[in-house]
């Protein structure tokens, strides 16, 4: 059978393994940070689980690592694909994992009246995530830091660096300080997913 694409376009399993072997400590940190962002709002998944799944798919050959593509770009594509597929499956499934119900609420003493099952309204940061708004959830992390919130908004518009600073009317020093605080604030996404 003829192939439409040259095999050389893809890393072999051994080459994929070698890429991971050569990860430095900061590379692992970057990969984990990225995984945590991708897993934000994904029920039952931590960033570590998502990264492990992506690595397994790449090492098994189920997902392709294009030659010359940066490891983080490859991982982001695979992890985003996994999270997107998982979310889609959950949403199309018979049970909505994002719904929370309160069984027994409004129960009466009358044996003939079955207990009600009411939907609970938990407007916590976690519930916001579970209401399918990853961006809204991340915005809550910087709700008390105006500058960091503005940088987040700029990123969500596809602006970053000098361009974002100019658009926000920030001097670079102010932008950098806000950017660093934002990166710090994004870390708790991991802790929340770990304990979920």
């Amino acid at each position: 059978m003829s192939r439409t694409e040259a095999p050389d376009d893809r890393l072999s399993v051994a080459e994929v393994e070698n890429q991971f072997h050569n990860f430095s400590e900061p590379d692992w940190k970057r990969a984990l940070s990225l995984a945590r962002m991708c897993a934000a709002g994904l029920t039952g998944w931590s960033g570590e689980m998502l990264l492990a799944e992506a690595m397994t798919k790449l090492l098994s050959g189920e997902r392709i690592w294009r030659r010359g593509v940066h490891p983080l770009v490859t991982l982001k594509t695979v992890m985003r694909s996994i999270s997107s597929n998982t979310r889609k499956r959950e949403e199309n499934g018979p049970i909505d994992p994002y719904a929370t119900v309160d069984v027994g609420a409004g129960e009466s003493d009358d044996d003939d009246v079955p207990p009600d099952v009411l939907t609970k309204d938990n407007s916590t940061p976690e519930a916001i995530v579970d209401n399918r708004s990853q961006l809204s959830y991340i915005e809550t992390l910087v709700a008390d830091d105006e500058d960091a919130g503005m940088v987040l908004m700029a990123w969500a518009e596809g602006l970053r660096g000098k361009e974002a600073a100019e658009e926000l009317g920030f001097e670079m020093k102010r932008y950098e300080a806000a950017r660093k605080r934002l990166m710090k604030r994004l870390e708790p996404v991991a802790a929340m997913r770990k304990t979920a």
Partner: protein
Amino acid sequence: MNSPTDKREPFDVLLDAYLEELMAMSDADVMDTDNPAELKATGMQMLEAAKAEAGKWRLAAAKAQLAAGRKTVSTDDEPAVSVAAAREFLRKASNDPRFTLAARGLDEMSDDDALRLYRQYKRLERERNDPGEDGA
């Protein structure tokens, strides 16, 4: 003027910006107060676990492929299809709400997986049209 990000979900745009920030940051900034040895050990543990799991997947895939190959040869019920045609078919099928295939996943899928998924899809279609077929 429309930018390439206009049609994308805001979270995807944010994710790309976050990725670029991570790549642009110095190693010292990225590491901050983290313990390098601990991070490396975590990474290596993940790699070893992923290798072991991937090995099992490859074995299972090889067995499934062997079984599928035998079935195809014996029943001759699957018309030959090119990888490009299978991918095009799956791309269209990704818009079918009955299936959960994401179009973005298709681009990273290997040729073998694309063909396998195409065959699965076709088999599902046949079973829907003729529910009694399996019992034959």
